[in-house]
């Protein structure tokens, strides 16, 4: 582990920052899309009605980009932040670049975007931002997702 001493006195593995690791492929199958539409109660005809979707700017059925938030692949890099005694999922971001369609094979690459500290009235918190980049079988980036983890000392400090 590469120690990165800072004024907040935390350590993390800086060698993983910005280094993409391929996690595998997430296939957009009809079964997955049906499960996603059911779980989210999605009824938008862009996703559910072939004729209506064909008349749309997309020219055919597309898939809600949120389906990529369900991806569960192991092997993502971890900055191994050493700070505090408590960590939680503090935020989530999704940027959408292009349409996703049934039959797409979405490759997933993960990296740690950044690690940084913030100090406020409740004490110091260390944020680790983990990023997934989703590319289709044509190599086009269709979405980027970021998950923020916050590390802190429970009870302040």
């Amino acid at each position, binding site marked *: 582990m590469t120690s990165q001493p800072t004024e907040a006195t935390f350590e993390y593995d800086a060698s993983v920052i910005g280094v993409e690791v391929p996690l595998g492929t997430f296939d957009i199958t009809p079964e997955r899309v049906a*499960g996603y539409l059911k779980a989210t*109660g999605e009824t938008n005809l862009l996703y559910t009605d072939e004729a209506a979707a064909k008349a749309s700017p997309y020219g055919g059925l597309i898939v*809600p980009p949120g389906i990529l938030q369900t991806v*569960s692949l192991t092997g993502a890099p971890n900055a191994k932040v050493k700070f505090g005694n408590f960590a939680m999922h*503090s935020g*989530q*971001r999704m940027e*959408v670049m292009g349409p996703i369609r049934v039959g797409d094979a979405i490759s997933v690459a993960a990296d740690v975007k950044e690690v940084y500290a913030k100090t406020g009235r409740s004490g110091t918190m260390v944020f680790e931002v983990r990023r997934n980049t989703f590319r289709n079988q044509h190599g086009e980036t269709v979405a980027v997702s970021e*998950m923020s983890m916050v590390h802190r000392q429970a009870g302040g400090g």
Partner: protein
Amino acid sequence: MADQRYFEDVEPGDEFNESWTPTREAVIGYLTVGNAEAGNTASRFTSDEEAKKIGMAKAIVPGAFSLVMASRVVADWMGPEGKLHSIDVDFRRPVLHDDTLNILALVTDTLEDDGVPTVKLDVYLENERGERPVQGTALVELPKRG
């Protein structure tokens, strides 16, 4: 199909909302889209017992599920020619199974950066306890009339 919303018809202060109750069935359905085994694995997202071990009152809803539900409400509001560019939320409190939630969105700005008709929104989830466990922003592009 949801009606098309046009850039000219949107003003800061416009609001829309939709109610949502995340049931255990829906949470498991969401999790199993990306991991077929998730429904068979006890976790803080599927089991009250596991959630209580980490101090939660009952099983919690994955943060990403709250994000996609907010994005769904925004997408429905936009109509078929709208484009969701980004959505970004912070988790302030846990969302619990069977919470009665109101997903709200508020238009905060309309602008045409580089000729692209863009709308900024604040998005929130409110629960029956008066809390806003999830809040954030979204950036969407709407078509112009004619």
